[in-house]
């Protein structure tokens, strides 16, 4: 592939061609490996346009990448070509205090955005587990969620406008800086979650909320998972929409206990981590209702954080879950199957049966409030038999989720991992409609080929 033309678009320091550099950009958090032919790190939108124009003209695939922390393989250059890293486009351009809008480049790390806007008394709710690492661009491509999703929604709900480069290299701004916008098709929302297959985002305008006045954190300990799972629905039924409603099962608690003893209260069968936020009087009222409810539903113990240090202590167990699991076996497979909230108890039981059937370590924790659980498998994928069992278990998890009226992916995206299962959730007509959109916007399959379908 003759890449010399790239030197006219970018300074040579922004074009990586060495074996070593291509190697490190070949992989992402799925641990799969696909080698790009070149890695480029544009500094501005104009360069991105030119890159994609050249790529389209020369039929070279382009894979956009933020931090490579995605769990569905979105940042992998499965057909080689150009790996387009946004690491160098990481500036927050403007925080509009009057309109509660932030304008930024896609390479901004989500936690950095949180820090910047919270210092101004504002709040950007989406808080994916990867937020200290992942970028806004990646969050947009995958429509990332996070614990605060139940009350506050996901990335899509905060995207007001996207500067997007389309196949062919032209660019358009979709959406607007206004609260409401219905000018033509909602391309902006289409782009969110399209995993870089319909357009490449070079700039985003996001809406902010005022930072809530008060935040209170609870940890509710249950003897069994069923009770905890049923409590989730009960909370919503009573009119309380917590900002966080995390479910952690016994297997996760045991794993954490082995690594960080004392992070969870001892003897817990399942735990709910709940947070309420809002105006102080509102939070006080909700606290009353919640505490009564938790005791009604059989919570053995309810802890409430009185200060920041205590809040950190209550979160420690939940935050340690992934690491505790990662230490049990060398490979960690995080799944994302989502069901309607009311079916959580069934989903939890279904996962348990799958773990037993395939003799695998599966811990379940996650955003039970919005039905988005993360059954996470600890295994050693170098063992062919274990790898086979993992593959079968994952397929079964999808099956169960779909049977319960759920969906394949709540927040991780389809990428390459789940592409084969798309036909199980969508009808042929549905799939064809999606493919028609792809064909219309990117007929030559330049933008992140090999993903979703």
């Amino acid at each position: 592939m003759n890449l010399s033309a790239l030197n006219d678009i970018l300074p040579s320091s922004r074009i990586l061609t060495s074996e070593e550099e291509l190697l490190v950009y070949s992989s992402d958090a799925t641990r799969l490996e696909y080698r790009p032919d070149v890695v480029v790190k544009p500094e501005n939108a104009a360069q991105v346009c030119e890159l994609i124009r050249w790529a389209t003209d020369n039929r070279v695939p382009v894979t956009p990448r933020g931090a490579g922390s995605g769990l569905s393989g979105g940042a992998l250059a499965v057909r080689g070509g150009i790996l387009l890293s946004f690491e160098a486009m990481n500036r927050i351009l403007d925080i509009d205090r009057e309109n509660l809008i932030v304008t930024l480049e896609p390479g901004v790390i989500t936690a950095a955005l949180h820090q910047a806007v919270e210092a101004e008394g504002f709040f950007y709710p989406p808080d994916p587990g990867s937020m200290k690492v992942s970028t806004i661009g990646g969050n947009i491509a995958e429509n990332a969620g996070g614990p605060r999703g139940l009350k506050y929604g996901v990335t899509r709900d905060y995207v007001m406008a996207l500067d997007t480069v389309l196949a062919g290299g032209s660019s358009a701004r979709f959406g607007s800086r206004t609260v409401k916008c219905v000018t033509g098709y909602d391309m902006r929302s289409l782009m969110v979650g399209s995993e870089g297959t319909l357009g490449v985002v070079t700039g985003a305008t996001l809406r902010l909320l005022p930072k809530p006045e008060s935040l209170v954190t609870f940890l509710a300990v249950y003897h069994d998972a069923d009770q905890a799972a049923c409590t989730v629905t009960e909370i919503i039924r009573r009119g309380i929409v917590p900002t966080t409603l995390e479910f952690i099962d016994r297997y996760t608690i045991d794993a954490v206990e082995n690594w960080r003893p004392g992070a969870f209260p001892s003897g817990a069968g399942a735990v709910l981590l709940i947070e309420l936020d809002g105006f102080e009087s509102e939070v006080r009222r909700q606290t009353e209702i919640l505490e009564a409810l938790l005791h009604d539903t059989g919570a053995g113990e309810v802890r409430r954080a009185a200060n920041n240090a205590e809040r950190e202590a209550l979160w420690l167990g939940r935050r340690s879950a992934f690491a505790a699991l990662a230490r049990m076996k060398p490979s960690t497979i995080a799944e994302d199957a989502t069901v309607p909230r009311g079916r959580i108890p069934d989903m939890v039981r279904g996962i348990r049966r799958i773990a037993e059937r395939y003799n695998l370590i599966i811990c379940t924790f996650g955003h039970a409030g919005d039905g988005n659980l993360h059954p996470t498998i600890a295994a050693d994928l170098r063992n062919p038999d274990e790898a086979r069992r993992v593959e079968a278990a994952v397929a079964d998890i999808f099956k169960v989720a779909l049977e319960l009226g759920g969906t394949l992916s709540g927040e991780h995206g389809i990428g390459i991992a789940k592409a084969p299962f798309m036909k199980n959730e969508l009808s042929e007509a549905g799939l064809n409609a999606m493919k028609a959109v792809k064909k219309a916007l990117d007929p030559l399959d330049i933008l992140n080929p090999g993903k979703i379908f």
Partner: protein
Amino acid sequence: MYPLLERYREDVYKCIRCGACRAVCPTFEAELDESMTARGRMALVEAVLDGKLELTEKFAEKMSTCITCMACSDDCPSGVPVEEIILAARAEIARARGVNPLQRFIARKVILSGWLLAPLIRLGGLAERMMRPFSAISPFKWKGRARKLPDIPGRPLRDSYPEVVRPDGPVKGRVAFYVGCNINLIYTDIGRSMVNVLSRLGVEVVMPPDEVCCGAPLFGLGDRETVVDLAAKNLHAFSNLNVDAIVLACPTCGQMLQKYPKMLAEARPELKAEAEAFAAKIMDINQYLLRFTETRELLGSAKGSPMKVTYHDPCHLKRGMGVSREPREVLKAIPGLTLTEMSAPDRCCGFGGTFSFAHYDLSMKIGEMKAEDIRRTDAQVVVTSCPGCRMGLSDLLDKSGQEIPVKHLVQVVEEALDKPKSGGQTAR
């Protein structure tokens, strides 16, 4: 093919490539590139182990630009021992390349033999002083200004003291002081403060004349052979001293000495038991000060003048030796002193020892963030507990226009006590 690296194969595979290291890696923060992260470096090591990559120049460069601050493994969900793996990779590279004659000369004739080191450092210091007016041609420049390096004293610390320094009054304890090359040849003032503070506490201080370099810089460059010889010499020098502890004010030396048992278990198994006994006695001065019951009493009764300080956690002390609570407790025991924490007190200062000479620009880029963090604390003094960090921080503060001193914790302790030790056996 690569026996030193092969033993880490399982550890390297443990990396699940989640990218959590990106959030804490100083070289990533400076360069914003995947190859400048623990994840990227581990991927390269895995490729070498799988035979997909040779020990190329670029591979060596990526191994060399890791500052080994260990922030990554602190946060790593899988607990990958990144620093160990990086150092093993460097050792493989050194083995493969063979050692160049100049490095061999410095390692064997200067550092191992010992006697040439002091005169060479003094000569280097003199040359550096002479070149200061000509900063335009300095090889180490940051934003147009030459690197600020300390003046080299005329005399090594250990030459200024007898082997045993006895306190006035009753002897309440007895320690060996492992001085280390930095404090022995460059920051001798830290060494004097150490001796004075310990004497004030009634502790007898032994400084064996046969101490040699701990080997940390050579270990960092991949020359394990010489480090084994240095270790054997140090074990000999510090054997049979009958001391409560071997105290240090340099955690780079401290964590290196603590590595001796593992290193010698293989290379010189007959020394393994001695190395274990030796390592068990190693203690950072802050740990010793707090274990010594008189300390708080003595500090608390000292005349305190108001001073706002901030404390920088040296990587080798906090992560290498697990000591970060004790220095703060010592500081809090000093009347008049207010400790204001930086937003990230344990973020690497960017010095990294030989790293700052091999990669000065990167070192300074990393340090800029530390400098700004310090500025935000509004502290009058920056306190740390490592001579290396002191050197790096002094340069950083100079470059960022902050005219505040950097002091070693033991110097602050000395100042807080009424007067330094007078009468009895003093420095010649």
